[in-house]
């Protein structure tokens, strides 16, 4: 044991070159003469070599781990994964082109839309409100004043600037017409079939439903007999025969037709579409069914198609009337609920009706 320890120490010293040259030569000789010792030297040398290789490898692994810690693995992954690399490169390469192409496409689309009038398509182009512009006789203010000065008349003889139609809501002088007929008016008069004019004042307007409620304030006005027609609350059926009475000229004109759609211009659910001949001046006229119920108010027509007139549903007229604040009404507004027309022939109905339909003259 002791000798083995010493021998090992000696071998180690020999292998590490710690021996003096004399000792080294002596040990070489020993190795040459004693194969047992030589074997031990080789064995020891191999074993220590393995040990140091083990150490080197561990050191190398530790070094690499340290380097690996510094790497941005997620970034590297992004870089090396083929698909992402490709897309990224494509995007980087072509994003300017893409942006330009997109802008050109946008400009092309917008300019096409602009040139074909896509943006200017509004109700006003196709929809014409049917108030009549009365410009055949133009009079100066002076003439008007002269007229008034010369003879005290029941109403001004001036035909007014615009005309429309209106009809009585109640016997005590409430009249309804379209808002667009009387808008911007200085003063409004109505004229019955006998040619009598009465001054009216605006009581209430509802621009959304295009409804205006007027009240006759003329001292010459006498209460009307009770109304022969009533107002229909429900929506009427398609294909129902309807007629209207209006003032497209200075005299009453009857128009007959049928209900062609439950919605008005551009899908407007407030109105019906009616296939009925109407002209400027018909606005505000009543739309009646065969039994003499008011089912709407004529308000306009489509300019570019035939037989498409529009009438505001009576349901919305009633809604508008309900919305009138009580203190705006000087007299009570009581709607007639009794219909005395239902069993009469059309001509008799019209005869009874005509006194309740007025030409609206707007100054």
């Amino acid at each position, binding site marked *: 044991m002791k000798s083995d*320890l010493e021998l*090992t*120490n000696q071998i180690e010293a020999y292998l590490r070159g710690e021996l003096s040259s004399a000792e080294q030569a002596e040990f070489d000789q020993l190795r040459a003469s004693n194969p047992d010792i030589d074997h031990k030297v080789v064995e020891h040398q191999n*074993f*220590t070599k*393995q*040990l*140091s*290789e*083990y*150490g*080197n*490898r561990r050191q*190398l*692994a530790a*070094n*690499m*781990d340290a*380097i*690996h810690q510094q*790497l941005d*693995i997620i970034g*590297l*992954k992004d*870089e*090396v*994964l*083929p698909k992402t690399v490709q897309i990224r490169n494509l995007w980087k390469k072509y994003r300017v082109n893409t942006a330009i192409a997109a802008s050109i496409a946008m400009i092309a689309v917008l300019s096409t839309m602009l040139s074909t009038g896509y943006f200017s398509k509004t109700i006003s182009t196709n929809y014409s409100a049917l108030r009549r512009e009365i410009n055949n006789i133009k009079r100066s203010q002076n003439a008007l004043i002269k007229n008034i000065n010369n003879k005290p008349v029941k109403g001004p003889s001036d035909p007014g600037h615009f005309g429309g139609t209106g009809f009585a809501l109640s016997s005590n002088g409430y009249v309804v017409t379209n808002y667009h007929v009387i808008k911007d008016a200085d003063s409004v008069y109505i004229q019955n079939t006998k040619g009598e004019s009465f001054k009216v004042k605006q009581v209430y307007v509802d621009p959304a439903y295009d409804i205006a409620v007027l009240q006759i304030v003329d001292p010459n006005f006498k209460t009307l007999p009770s109304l022969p027609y009533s107002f229909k609350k429900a929506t009427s059926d398609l294909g129902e025969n309807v007629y209207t009475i209006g003032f497209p000229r200075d005299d009453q004109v009857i128009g007959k037709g049928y209900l062609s759609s439950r919605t008005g211009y551009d899908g407007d659910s407030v109105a019906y579409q009616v296939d009925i001949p109407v002209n400027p001046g018909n606005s505000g006229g009543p739309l009646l069914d065969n039994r003499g119920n008011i089912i709407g108010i004529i308000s306009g027509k489509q300019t570019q198609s035939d037989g498409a007139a529009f009438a505001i549903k009576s349901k919305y007229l009633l809604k508008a009337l309900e919305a009138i604040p009580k203190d705006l009404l000087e007299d009570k507004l009581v709607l007639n609920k009794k219909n005395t027309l239902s069993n009469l022939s059309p001509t008799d109905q019209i005869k009874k009706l005509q006194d309740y339909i007025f030409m609206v003259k707007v100054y």
Partner: protein
Amino acid sequence: MSKEIKSSVPTDREVVFGILNDSKDMLNRLYKSYFPMVLQLVLTNNGNEDDAKDIFQESVIVLYNRVKAGKFELNSKLKTFIYSVCRRLWLKRLSQQSRNIGNVKDFEDFLSVDEDLEQHEEKDKQFKQMEHALKLLGEPCRTIIEDYYIQNRSMQEICEKFGYTNADNAKTQKYKCLQRLKKYFFRHNNLKNEE
């Protein structure tokens, strides 16, 4: 963020000299230059980044052993060598885990590295044996052995570190440790051989 001056890919000759001189800087450049290639290979063939790390580090060890043995001829490109080793290692690992191999998606040329890998396997076995034997050895023997034979510390230093009164005592202790280590190492070896 300005990236630190990205160490350009070192030439193969630089790498070989760096390895021979145990240059840490060269290891760093080598690692950063070639790891992405291996990461790509492994990620696109059913692996994750940890697999890539293991495979790549193993290939670097193969390279080191080969260069230190004086066998790395400069007629094969270093990149090709690393790629080929990693490819083989990864295929082997995939088949061991009986994961689907299918067609390997290759990104580089590769060459046959069977001989290197055989040697590597042998060395790897020895490394694991040594690791196991050292683990069995326990303290303080392990530290003494590591200090003396791996760190190449002098007996004087070891004496002071462990508080031996004289170098002879330390030498005796070291001798006993070495004998035990050999015993563990070869016993393990024999067991393996008998199996």
